[in-house]
């Protein structure tokens, strides 16, 4: 056979950064209370940095107990005087308006999300922001149809909801929390995560522009103590929390004996199960998407990969091949697949797990790519032949680290998949429909994806079993968490 007669230079993509010129970020952000931005009473501000280069983007107000109290009072006043008085259809109009404004400003939101949180612009542009708008659109439609969501029951709002959200999907989580609460007639006080407050504050500006009545949405920024003040405030009717299982347990303890309602969406250690008859190349894509989406900062990440032993080497080779085509770097570059780790603290956590896994003697594979000098980065990593008792198979890492386990029979993999305190999500890959139904009905997880992974839609309820929390977000089930029902 003839030999290749040309010797082409390697074809690599040139930088393609999204321009951030038109993005408006103020130097300093105050608290959003009663429809206005107010300086924090403690006069304290903390910096928010870009995890890709460690540069300070802005300074964010730190809310103390007094500020939180003001915010709850503003929410209560708005609930009593305006939001519970206007017609449901009128509430819907505001939600539609917010949804449309998010779409109009999608590009700016996407860029800020990537700057503040380190996620690749491809994801903030194509996933976070469109889904945030979709949640407002979806819930806007429910406002005047609540009787149809809960037939033969009297539907009433709860009152004031305190909502605490994580740093992995900042605007999207704000939308998941605010949209159903408002649709059901509640007012809210939202606390974003301290490393990623910016898009929530941009959302506050957008809410002002939408003309939402003052106090219906209040945003208080700060770290743990701010969140605690919100949870412990006596005039809050409901707490919705998304974050770590440890903090979730603390919140539940603190609410015990109060009349406050609670929903928790906590950690996960999802099993992504590849059966021998799966379409392997597409399953590999699902594995990649399951664990490396948003640098693995996803509570439903497919962090435990279960591969049937007969195809283990085939999957291993294809997975490593695919990992080598991932592009790590500047989150604002349109070609980036893997952005920066959200914070220095999170990077340390991830690195400590990698060190533990190495100490256990596990075989590690890491993509051999260059890593920028500044900022927080972690190469896509996998560990093979992981036992059920290994620390990286048991604990949530919340980073781009995959534990590969093998199994022989379906009963075995179901036992292993369920052998965890978590139960948020799972994935099943098989070409055989009956197997999908068998596994999905026996896996103890709130969300089970079949032949796909990490698919989100506002119509679909999301939430966990066991220590992954309770209550659902999205769909009618999500609305249920924000209403009082009377037969």
């Amino acid at each position, binding site marked *: *056979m*003839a*030999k*290749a*007669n*040309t010797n*082409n*230079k*390697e*074809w*690599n*993509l*040139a*930088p*393609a950064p999204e321009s951030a010129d038109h993005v408006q970020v103020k130097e300093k952000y105050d608290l959003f209370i009663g429809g206005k931005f107010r300086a924090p009473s403690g006069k304290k501000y903390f910096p928010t940095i870009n995890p890709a280069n460690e540069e300070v983007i802005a300074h964010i107000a730190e809310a103390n107990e007094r500020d939180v109290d003001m915010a709850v009072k503003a929410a209560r006043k708005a609930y009593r005087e305006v939001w519970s008085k206007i017609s449901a259809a009128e509430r819907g109009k505001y939600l539609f308006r917010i949804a449309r404004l998010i779409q109009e400003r999608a590009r700016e939101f996407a860029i800020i999300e990537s700057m503040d949180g380190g996620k690749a612009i*491809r994801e903030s542009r*194509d996933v976070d922001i469109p889904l945030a708008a979709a949640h407002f659109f979806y819930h806007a439609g429910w406002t005047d149809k609540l009787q149809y969501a809960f037939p033969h029951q009297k539907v009433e709002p709860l009152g004031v909801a305190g909502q605490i959200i994580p740093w992995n999907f900042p605007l999207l989580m704000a939308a998941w929390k605010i949209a159903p609460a408002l649709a059901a007639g509640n007012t809210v006080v939202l606390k974003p995560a301290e490393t990623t407050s910016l898009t929530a504050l941009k959302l506050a500006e957008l809410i002002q522009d939408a003309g939402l009545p003052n106090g219906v949405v209040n945003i208080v920024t700060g770290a743990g103590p701010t969140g605690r003040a919100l949870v412990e405030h006596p005039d809050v009717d409901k707490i919705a929390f998304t974050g770590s299982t440890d903090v979730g347990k603390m919140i539940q303890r603190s609410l015990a004996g109060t009349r406050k309602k609670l929903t928790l969406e906590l950690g996960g250690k999802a099993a992504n199960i590849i059966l021998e*008859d799966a*379409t*392997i*190349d*597409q*399953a590999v*894509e*699902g594995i990649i998407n399951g664990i490396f989406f948003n640098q693995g900062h996803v509570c439903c990440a497919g962090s435990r990969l279960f591969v049937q032993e007969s195809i283990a080497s085939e999957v291993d*080779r*294809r997975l490593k*091949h695919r990992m080598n*085509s991932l592009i790590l770097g500047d989150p604002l570059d*349109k*070609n980036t697949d893997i952005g920066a780790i959200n914070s220095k603290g999170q990077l340390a956590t991830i690195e400590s797990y990698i060190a533990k896994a190495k100490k256990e003697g596990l075989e590690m594979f890491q993509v051999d790519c260059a890593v920028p000098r500044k900022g927080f980065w972690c190469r896509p990593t996998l560990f093979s032949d992981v036992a059920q008792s290994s620390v990286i198979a048991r604990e949530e890492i919340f980073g781009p680290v995959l534990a590969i386990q093998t199994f022989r029979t379906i009963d075995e993999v179901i036992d292993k998949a369920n052998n965890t305190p978590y139960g948020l999500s799972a994935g099943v890959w098989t*070409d055989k429909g009956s197997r999908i139904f068998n596994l999905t009905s026996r896996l103890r997880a709130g969300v089970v994806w079949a*032949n*796909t992974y990490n698919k989100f839609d506002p119509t679909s309820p999301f939430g966990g079993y066991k220590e992954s929390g309770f209550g659902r977000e999205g769909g009618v089930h999500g609305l249920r968490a924000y209403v009082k029902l009377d037969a």
Partner: protein
Amino acid sequence: MVQSIPRKAVDQTGIEERCDRFKKRSIKKDAKVQGLQLALSMIDLTTLEGKDTPGKVRQMCYKAMHLHDAYPGLPTVAAVCVYPNFVETAKKALKGSGVLVASVATAFPSGQSSLQVKLDDTRMAVEAGADEVDMVISRGKYHCGDFGFVYDEIAAVKEACGKARLKVILETGELVTLDDVAYASRIAIAAGADFIKTSTGKVQPAATMPVTLTMLEVIRDHYFATGQMIGMKPAGGISNAKLALHYLIMVKESLGQQWLDKHWFRFGASSLANDLLKQLVKQKTGAYQSSPYFAID
């Protein structure tokens, strides 16, 4: 033999999602210029019409060697692709240029004839000097489930090719499902194909990204199993530069850099070249030139 070739399912939704990811790559500046030139060098400039004449073929051959003389340093296309009776004309016109001559054969495009006629067709092309033969598989037999026939026919044509490289056209628009595209690809490779090719260009849909990705994944399976590289040629329907660059991204990310070479990847196209040229000129001058500035041979 054909019984030992595994039938492996392909998930169409998964394939389509992967293709969307390729399309999201942003190809700018130097990478764009390099990609456009690479695509040019991979073209099988094609004329396969009832009204083809020696004159038409000679003119196309000139274009193959002189893509756009106003732009110095351009590569030639990889090959021209013609009917067997024009191989001699093309061979003569391209002499010394390095541009190869590919000939369709085996009762192209339908493949509805006897094996004897197909082999004669192939030998005629090879004896006239064809460097490559583009054969069609028997889709009718495939749909009858007579995979052994399809396999044996490819193996026989391969033998008749001698030193010429064999491209096996699956006519994926007539196989329809990706499961069948994958299985036919496996049969073709097992039977001796040097290249697998999507389409004749006479049936719609011709080449699509999902079909091409399915075939590339079969090539990758074969490479992982044997270490042997197989070439890929999508043909028909790739008429603009942007799409061609998406295909190159797909090749790079599914198979790797070593396939980004005209020896392993081709575009079967007639009008793609001019759009690539137009984009190259735009990259150089900053302005689009109108179509009349690019020759239409």
